[in-house]
């Protein structure tokens, strides 16, 4: 593939054609554009244009109190919103030095790992679709629905979850949530096994993905890649293992690492991460049995919004409710960087606080944005069909790309 002659603009034989891939092309799975120069089916050069759904979240965040920023984070990576929500809550908790109880941590771990599985289901399923195999996607999608139903039991919504509060959760998990979670843990491994059997040694799939868009560890690091993409290239950087948050240090799991950094190894890494996530959820469920069942938030009345019945019937709750909503509680004037392992990589929150009602400055380190910048350079010399599956395996989520 690499040795194929590429005609340049000066070549008299060249007849380059321009292809607008996007902004709303079905193969891009999101609103972003690539203007490609094609020599036949081979890409000579490309320019990425992004920003079609830029919503200025960083600017909006400067005008909102902390607890109202959670719904903004939902809309970053909307395939795994709970990870973004939890990342934001933990950033504020780090700023305010709030210690969350172990049970809250474990519940958070469960939700975050479910979100990771949901995200990888979509990514790997769609990779199958783009290589011509629709079946696996449909098998897996059923279980994403199961995950969304668990979200519904926990917080009432499915896609943009707005799950949890600063200090914990808005309500305890009900028994149906746990029933659905156990059912998911029982049913999903079978499907995942079946999915792997369909793809891992499938001749057509392997021929289409192995060696495509291979990236060395040095290049990946130079482009600040993180998450499954960096691990597929052979660097074992996982925020959960390196800087454990939300009690990840209590869990036993492995960080899967690939070697070639191509589309195939990214696929394998994501599949293995789903197995590890299942392992973590099972451990978390076992640990929950040892924790008091009625704890679902930290005891920080000055930052945790009280339930509405309390507000109407209890003087202190009313006062705290008023103070939280009006931003009357002093917060430290400092700056904090906190990162979590999002489904696409290191999702960082850089928060500069001036003690006011809303952040002075909030910056999201968005893995999709940083991972995507290599797309146009690495597409050079690639077949168009390979570039499409490369885009699928990068798992670019337009909401996270544009913020």
């Amino acid at each position, binding site marked *: 593939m690499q040795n194929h002659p590429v005609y340049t603009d000066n070549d008299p034989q060249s007849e380059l054609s321009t292809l607008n891939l996007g902004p709303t092309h079905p193969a891009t799975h999101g609103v972003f554009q690539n203007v490609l120069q094609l020599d036949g089916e081979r890409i000579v050069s490309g320019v990425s244009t*992004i*920003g079609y759904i*830029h919503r*200025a979240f*960083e*600017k*909006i965040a*400067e*005008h909102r109190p902390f607890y109202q920023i959670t719904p903004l984070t939902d809309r970053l990576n909307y395939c795994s919103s709970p990870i973004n929500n939890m990342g934001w809550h933990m950033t504020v908790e*780090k700023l305010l030095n709030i210690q969350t109880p172990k049970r809250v941590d474990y519940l958070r771990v469960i939700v975050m790992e479910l979100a990771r599985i949901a995200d990888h289901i979509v990514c790997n399923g769609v990779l199958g679709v783009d290589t011509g195999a629709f079946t696996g996607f449909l098998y897996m999608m059923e279980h994403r629905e199961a995950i969304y139903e668990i979200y519904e039991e926990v917080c009432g919504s499915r896609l943009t979850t707005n799950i949890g509060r600063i200090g914990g959760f808005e309500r305890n998990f009900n028994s149906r949530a746990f029933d659905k979670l156990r059912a998911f843990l029982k049913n999903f491994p079978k499907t995942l096994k079946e999915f792997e059997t369909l793809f891992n040694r499938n001749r057509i799939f392997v021929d289409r993905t192995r060696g495509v868009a291979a990236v060395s560890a040095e*290049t990946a*690091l*130079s*482009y*600040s*890649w993180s998450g499954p993409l960096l691990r597929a290239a052979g*660097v074992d*950087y996982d925020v959960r293992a*390196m*800087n454990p948050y939300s009690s990840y240090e209590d869990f036993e799991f492995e960080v899967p690492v690939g070697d070639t950094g191509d589309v195939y190894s990214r696929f394998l890494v994501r599949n293995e991460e789903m197995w590890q996530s299942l392992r973590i959820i099972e451990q978390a469920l076992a640990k929950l049995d040892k924790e008091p069942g009625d704890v679902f938030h930290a005891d920080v009345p000055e930052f945790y919004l009280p339930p509405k019945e309390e507000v109407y019937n209890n003087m202190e709750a009313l006062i705290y409710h008023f103070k939280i909503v009006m931003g009357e509680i002093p917060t430290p004037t*400092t*700056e*904090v*960087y906190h*990162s979590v392992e999002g489904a696409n990589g*290191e999702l*960082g929150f*850089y928060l*500069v606080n001036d003690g006011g009602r809303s952040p*002075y*400055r909030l*910056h999201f*380190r968005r893995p999709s*944005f*940083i991972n*995507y*910048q*290599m797309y146009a*350079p690495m597409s050079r010399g690639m077949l168009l069909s390979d570039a499409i599956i490369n885009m699928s395996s990068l798992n670019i989520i337009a909401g996270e790309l*544009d*913020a």
Partner: protein
Amino acid sequence: MARIPNEQLIKAIADKFDNQVTVIGEPYELLTVETGREQIIDLLTFLKTDPELKFIFLTDITAVHYPELEKQIGVIYHLHSLTTNTRIRIKVFLTEADVHIPTATVLWDGANWMERETYDLFGVIFDGHPDLRRILNVDDMTAFPMRKEFPLEDPNRVDKKDFYFGR
């Protein structure tokens, strides 16, 4: 390898850069230093290539606007040493009248879009950048929207106005 203690990090930087790099603080154990734009590439190169520090991972580049300070624009770098799991934050302050700073794309390819985003939102001009264009906003925009004087909403818009009760 274990995390590099902040004292050791401060000493390593001070040995090389004397008083050109000042320590601002260690909020939440993350060492924060300030330097001038003349030294920034030297400092980043030193941090990246020093065999003991090896801050090989550029986590992020962004900026903060402080209109009330003498130097209004702060450019913030976050670096991460993956072998020792140490992070460092570097700040360079610039005046609004002269927002030039050398590009970090000479060290990391990944700095490209981070700097384009910073240019787009704050108007920081990264000298030597290969392709310094707007990235999130439209090309013909004239303002830098993340600066504090830029309003969140267009003050002239009428579609949200309630003519009976005001807003």
